[in-house]
């Protein structure tokens, strides 16, 4: 059963630049696992050591967050869409908490 999985820009470095992948799976968990099998380098960014999903990764089936459905067991309809969505947060933090920098100049 083919399902389209949409990959956010932040993770495309691990999918050869692809923004989506056609994968097999009947549940959200199976589809995400199929992505990790196809692109092993992405696995560490999706899963904790205990194989649970990392807290900053959200998975949507259609426009439904699986946290509000059946979790990784949420069924995916044939031809459906699964989407990985990163959590986004930050802020100025404590006034003394600025972090050290690697340097400037716009080069990694």
């Amino acid at each position, binding site marked *: 059963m083919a399902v389209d999985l949409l990959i956010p*820009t932040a993770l495309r*470095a691990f999918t050869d630049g692809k923004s989506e992948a056609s994968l097999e799976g009947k549940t959200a968990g199976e589809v995400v696992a199929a992505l990790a099998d196809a692109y092993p380098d992405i696995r560490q960014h999706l899963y904790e050591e205990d194989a649970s999903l990392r807290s900053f990764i959200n998975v949507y089936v259609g426009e439904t967050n699986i946290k509000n459905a059946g979790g990784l067991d949420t069924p995916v309809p044939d031809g459906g869409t699964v*989407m990985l969505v990163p959590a986004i947060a930050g*802020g100025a933090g404590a006034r003394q908490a600025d972090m050290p920098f690697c340097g400037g100049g716009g080069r*990694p």
Partner: protein
Amino acid sequence: MITFAAGAADAIRAEGEKTYPHECCGAILGRVTDPGISGGFGLREAEAVVPVENAREPEAQYHRFVIEADDVMRVELAARRQGLDVLGFYHSHPDHPARPSEYDHEHALPFYSYVIVAVEKGRAAALTSWRLTADRSGFIEEETEARG
């Protein structure tokens, strides 16, 4: 380097002033024109900014922001419909320098441009952009340019 289309950087500054003394936040949409395969950060062009509601509780918004997953999902879908990429996210630092905090570091992902605008006593000041290193060891400032 990240280049802002005319009005895009000013829109971030205006949003920072509007939400002061709370942090504003939003997404940056555009195109990667040079992925920087040779080792650099490459070039990216920010064509639009999308303000998003800061979902943190009001008493924490002076130094924290969070974008709800549903909002990130909608922004991602909107970008795809327009043929654009989500290049990164912006937020303001009210009465705090435009430099990432340790809290920013803990929540950052590689690839994204993290644009920060300092807002000093209600007036927008420095606007900077930062990229997390691939090994998550720290941020490197990304050169910025505003058109028109």
